[in-house]
């Protein structure tokens, strides 16, 4: 079953999302990646005001290519989420309710999602041209000087994601690999961790 959501996300919507669910997002989401997160968290730590209100919002980890003439945005697929893990707790404290990226999160962050009742979605990595068609409008709302790392407000329609971590715990990657692994390994697979 496909679920449809629109931010801001409330508790009822979040309760209902389960690992593996296919979700279509319509509405406004924000782009941010490494350099913007660094500034967000520096601002929070100094007690300053963030350029956007994170409460109930979704952040998409993306740094798109520049738009060709006649396009609203260039290719715009997800970047690796784990690089944002060390910034996660202050962002969640500020009210952020969902992130979209690719790849797994550190186990510490998976726990934070439970604690702060937030979800982690994945979009397909490496299909940025295809994904760009789901973005109907894009405007820079902060940190323009960061170039491809500036924060943008993206208007999306039926933007396809999968729930990778929900507020109930569990992890889509671990479950997936268990199901298909056909080899015994003489070592433990450790998740690379950034927190």
């Amino acid at each position, binding site marked *: 079953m496909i679920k449809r959501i629109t931010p801001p996300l409330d508790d009822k919507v979040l309760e209902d999302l389960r690992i593996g669910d296919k979700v279509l997002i319509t509405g406004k989401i924000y782009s941010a990646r490494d350099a913007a997160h660094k500034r967000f968290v520096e601002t929070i730590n100094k007690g300053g005001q963030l350029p956007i209100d994170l409460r109930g919002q979704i952040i998409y980890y993306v740094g798109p290519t520049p738009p060709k003439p006649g396009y609203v945005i260039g290719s715009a697929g997800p970047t690796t989420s784990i690089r944002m893990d060390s910034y996660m707790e202050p962002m969640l404290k500020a009210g952020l309710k969902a992130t979209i990226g690719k790849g797994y999160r550190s186990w510490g962050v998976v726990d934070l999602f439970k604690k702060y009742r937030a979800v982690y979605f994945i979009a397909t*990595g*490496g299909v940025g041209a295809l994904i760009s068609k789901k973005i109907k409008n894009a405007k820079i709302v902060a940190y323009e000087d960061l170039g491809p790392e500036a924060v943008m407000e993206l208007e999306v329609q039926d933007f396809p994601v999968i729930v990778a971590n929900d507020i109930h715990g569990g992890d889509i990657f671990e479950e997936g690999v268990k199901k298909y692994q056909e*080899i015994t390994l003489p070592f433990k697979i450790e998740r690379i961790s950034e927190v």
Partner: protein
Amino acid sequence: MKIVRVEEVEEAVRRLSMEVNYYIRDELKDAYKKALEREVSETGREILSQIIENVELAAKEQLPICQDTGVSIVYVEIGQDVKIEGGNLYDAINRGVSKGYKEGYLRKSVVKDPLFNRVNTGDNTPAMIHVEVVPGDIFKITFMAKGTGAENMSRLAMLTPAAGVKGIRDFVLKTVAEAGPNPCPPVVVGIGIGGTFDTVGWLAKKALMRKFGSRHPDPNYAKLELELLDEINKLGVGPQGLGGRITALDVRIETAPCHIGALPVAVNLDCHAHRVGVWEK
């Protein structure tokens, strides 16, 4: 003596920067299709279909296949009978990158200093340039747009000779398994074995820049490439790491002689958006 003008080099690099980002090579597209036939996970099949749809759309509209249009890696093989005329070769390559990334609406993903001054250079330069002198009069440029998702998951180890084939195998499997979904599987695996600490990483990168599906000239290594591919595809990582049979599309090994007490190994991962192009004069 063959003459190569720097203007030709600049133009070739400009074109390659754009072409590799818009058009995937036929052999790679075939590999996606074969993977789709062999994948048993339904989600995995869905993702492989999206990958195929994406490269078709990218080619049709000349959009970058992936938004991470990478750092530009330029490998130049210069025959010793070739003369470069018209200026500095390195500058010409960087001018080509700068033009290609600007004109082609590609993302500029290079900062000028790794630690203290992470300011975007604004035109994707400097490229990572490797020059090798070879016999004869060939002049060959291999261009790779290397995204960082897969690059960050690459690993290097200074094994010792006793580790042998098993040590190499375990290290490769561990690297791919622990990278999991992060390098956008199905991946292409470049492995360097031998040399010293500095050369083994470059060997792994060279393996990635070699022709897709080509085998090592030594049958022992050619066999190991195929065995590793088979074992990697038993890890269960699958497309996007969501579980499945297709974790890698190809494994290529490059080797070099090494010290009696050493067995360096490097695993350089690349994603399914495996963007490499060649220009030869």
